[in-house]
Structure formats: structure tokens, C-alpha cells
């Protein structure tokens, strides 16, 4: 047996690197979080698997005989050109009921307040020495919306898509842990116990159909950069509300969403290659992402307190925290906190309205961010 044969036989062992091993452990950690803790398992499990596969020595999943391997093909197919996040948005639109928002349109403003974290984190990232396009990409973690984060960071700083996606999805799954302490610190027991009467108003199918079309036209004309995100979100919702394309709606909610989630997870995982991922910068991204999330919650609650003041104490400020995009976890957490203060307090439907607004607002904020930074990156 000659030396070359031996080399070929043990190529894997000979090409092991410590960075690769560390990243394989990171991949295992993500898989453990998905299985044992059930933190966003649909995405963290494929990301973990993609991370392990991409960090194998001489991974043929990335490059095989000079040709792109499966993971690289998936990346080129849907992450590099922003296709996958948009397809996921169609599924999200098909699954989201904007009824609570249509019943109470004033909640729309709470969705805007929930986006403050994006821009405040952008400033902090600039102070830490990140370039403007990188800072904007990190800030968008504050949208607390996976597809928006991937879409915006993919355009502004493609090399940072991996850590940004992991941060966005990890923190989304930590909504029930991160939000309640902030909400309790910023509000008094009396404020949390404020009861808000809710009268359900029937929304006609006509209005439900006009809503996605109107939003698409308004946003598309005013902020064209947000059109891909809002347009696909509203397309999914239009299919849902039209009630004439049940098969398409079902496919968008299930088959399309599931397949794209798997492909997206694997492709994102493949970007977490050791020598690029193991950097101080990654740690900063994760920390700043967490900060963005906290700032969103803080600003949401503070805006809720402002509405409480303007309404003469009739508005429960906790609802402001539901203005972030994590749908519907944020609304559920708000209801839990209100119930803890007074177990007969029912604010869920108000919170759902704010949460649905957050969904639209985060996509808009992503588009606005792209519009403001377009001259720097997008050629």
C-alpha cells in the first residue's frame, strides 16, 4: 500500500482541525437545544446538522470534486439569492390571522414601538467598531423575525448570516424567559392588573381580502425595499382569506414551509464553518442580538406606558411588549404576566393585535433599513 492510498484512507483524520471540532460541538449543542429543550426545533435541528456536516474534514457536502456539494447548492439556491426567507414568509402569511389587528387598528402603533431595538442596537454596534452595513445587519436581529433577519443580513453582510440567524431564532425561542423580567421591572403590579374590555367585532371576508392588498400597495409604493417581505407575507394571507385556494394555502402552510425550513436550516448551518465562525465578532453579534431583543421589549413597554398615560390609565402597558414580531409567543407571554397580576385579567386579544402589527412592522422596518443603507452595499 503506497503513501497516497494511505493518505486517501485517512484523509478525514489527517485534515481534522480544532475549529472544525469546536463547530461540530456547537452543532451538537444546537441539536441538543432543539431536542431536549425544544427551542425552535424545526430550525435549530437542521442548522445543527448543517453545521456538523459542513465542518467535517474535507466535507464533500460543501465541495465535491471541485463542484458544489449539496449544502453549497442549497445555499446558492435559496439563501444567496434571498429566495428561502421569502417563501417562508408566504407560509407565515398563510398561517397568520390578522383579525385581532383589524378589530383594533390602533394596535398598529405598538408594532412600530417594538422595532426601536433595531436602530438602538445598530448604534451600539457602530460604537463597537462594526462597519455600517454590518451594524445594520446586527441591528435587524431586533426585528425578532428569522426570515427578515436572513433577508436583510444576506443583502447587507452575507458573511454574517450564520451567527445572525442563529441569534435571531435562539432568542425567539427564549421569549418566555427574556421578556417577563423586563416587563415586571418596568411596570407596577397595579398597571399589570389593568383590565381592558374587549368587544369582538366581526370582520367581513371583504375586509380580510382587502387588507393584504391594501398593505401591499401602501408599503410597495412608500417603501419599495420592503415589498419582497411584505408582498410575500400578504400573498400568503390573501390566499388564506380568499378561501378559494385551499390547496395552495394548505401547501404554503405545510409542504412548502416544511421543505423550505429544512433547506434553509441546512444552508444556514453550512455557513457556520469554523475558521469564519470562531471569532470575537461572533460573540459580539450574539450579545448585541440579545441586547436588541431586550431593547425592543423595553421600548414596547415604555410605549405602552405612554398609551396608558394618554388613555387616562385605561391601557395595560404590558401589551406594548407584544409589539415585537415573535408571533404568537409574545402575546402569550403578555397574557401570562397579566394573569399573574390578576387571574381574571384577559388581555390576550389586545396583545394578539399588537403582535400581528409587530409582524407587519418588522418586515417594514427591515425594508426601511435596506432602503436607508442601500447606497452602501446594494449595487
Amino acid at each position, binding site marked *: 500500500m503506497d503513501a497516497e492510498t494511505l493518505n486517501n484512507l485517512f484523509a478525514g483524520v489527517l485534515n481534522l482541525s480544532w475549529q472544525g471540532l469546536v463547530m461540530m460541538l456547537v452543532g451538537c449543542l444546537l441539536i441538543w437545544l432543539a431536542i431536549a429543550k425544544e427551542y425552535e426545533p424545526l430550525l435549530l435541528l437542521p442548522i445543527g446538522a448543517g453545521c456538523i456536516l459542513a465542518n467535517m474534514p474535507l466535507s464533500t457536502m460543501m465541495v465535491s470534486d471541485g463542484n458544489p456539494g449539496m449544502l453549497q447548492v442549497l445555499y446558492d439556491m435559496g439563501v444567496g439569492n434571498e429566495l428561502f426567507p421569502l417563501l417562508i414568509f408566504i407560509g407565515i402569511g398563510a398561517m397568520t390571522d390578522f383579525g385581532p389587528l383589524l378589530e383594533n387598528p390602533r394596535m398598529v402603533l405598538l408594532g412600530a414601538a417594538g422595532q426601536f431595538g433595531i436602530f438602538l442596537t445598530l448604534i451600539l454596534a457602530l460604537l463597537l467598531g462594526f462597519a455600517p452595513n454590518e451594524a445594520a445587519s446586527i441591528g435587524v436581529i431586533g426585528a425578532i423575525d428569522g426570515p427578515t433577519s436572513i433577508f436583510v443580513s444576506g443583502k447587507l453582510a452575507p458573511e454574517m448570516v450564520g451567527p445572525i440567524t442563529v441569534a435571531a431564532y435562539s432568542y425567539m425561542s427564549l421569549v418566555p424567559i427574556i421578556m417577563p423580567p423586563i416587563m415586571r421591572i418596568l411596570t407596577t403590579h397595579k398597571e399589570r392588573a389593568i383590565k381592558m374590555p374587549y368587544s369582538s367585532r366581526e370582520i367581513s371576508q371583504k375586509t380580510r381580502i382587502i387588507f393584504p392588498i391594501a398593505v401591499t400597495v401602501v408599503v410597495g409604493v412608500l417603501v419599495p425595499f420592503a415589498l419582497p417581505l411584505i408582498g410575500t407575507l400578504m400573498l400568503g394571507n390573501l390566499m388564506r382569506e380568499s378561501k378559494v385556494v385551499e390547496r395552495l394555502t394548505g401547501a404554503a402552510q405545510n409542504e412548502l414551509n416544511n421543505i423550505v425550513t429544512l433547506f434553509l436550516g441546512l444552508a444556514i448551518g453550512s455557513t457556520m464553518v469554523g475558521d469564519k465562525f470562531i471569532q470575537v465578532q461572533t460573540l459580539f453579534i450574539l450579545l448585541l442580538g440579545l441586547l436588541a431583543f431586550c431593547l425592543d421589549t423595553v421600548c414596547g413597554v415604555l410605549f405602552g406606558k405612554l398609551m396608558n398615560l394618554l388613555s387616562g390609565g385605561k391601557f395595560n402597558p404590558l401589551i406594548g411588549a407584544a409589539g415585537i414580531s415573535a408571533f404568537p409567543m409574545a402575546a402569550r407571554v403578555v397574557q401570562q404576566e397579566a394573569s399573574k397580576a390578576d387571574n381574571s385579567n384577559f388581555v390576550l386579544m389586545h396583545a394578539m393585535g399588537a403582535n400581528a402589527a409587530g409582524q407587519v412592522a418588522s418586515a417594514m422596518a427591515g425594508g426601511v433599513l435596506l432602503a*436607508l443603507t442601500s447606497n452602501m452595499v446594494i449595487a
Partner: protein
Amino acid sequence: MNNLGWGLEMLALGMGTVFVLLFVLMVVLMAMGLLDRPSRARLIRPRAAETIEAGETESGSSDTAWMTIADASGLTPEQIAAISVAVAMHADVRRKQGAAVNRVHSPGSRLWASRWVSMGRGAQMQNSRR
């Protein structure tokens, strides 16, 4: 420091734009809400069987009611509700008598699955769960 200035500009411009956009959206939604108010003609008022037969319309019914179940045979809404519950419960009892343990779905809805196959599948699923 230049970057910081740019960041502050982004904050003001970005959040300003987001707020303005969402304010416009709020106005649009409110306008849609106003146009979507139910007209009085759309309200179906409760009518008793006698008035239906007499071709008369009962006056003074509640405007807040969207729709009241009425029946030409003269049954009151309460009686109709009671009969509906009884029918549903009877169907449920019949279903349990037909397949006491394993059949969760309505009879006939899973024509491809025999009782024993369903039971086996159920047991398999249980085993795989923690």
C-alpha cells in the same frame, strides 16, 4: 464619530419612517373598519313562527343581534339548541358503542384503516413518545 452621527440619523429616519408608515396603515385600517360597519338591512331579526306564518315582522327586536336562529316549525332558539346538543351527544354515544376503545375519528372517515390496524398504529405512536 462619523459613524455615530450616521447611526443617530438612521435611528431618527428609520423609526420616523416606520412610525409614519404604520400610522398611514392605521388610518387605512380605520377607514376600512368604518366602511365595513354592518348595515341594518343585514341584520336578521328574530322572528317567532306565528309571525312568520302571519307574514308579519316583529318590531323592537335587539339591533345588537347579528343573527338569531329561528324555525318555521315554531321551536324556540333554546329548544333548537337543546335538540342540537342531544343529537351531537347521541352521535357520540353511538360512536363509542361502535368502537369503544380505539376509534377516535367519526365512523366511516377512515375507511382504509381497520380497527386492529388503528390500534396497532396507536400503540406504535405511544411507544415512540417519551
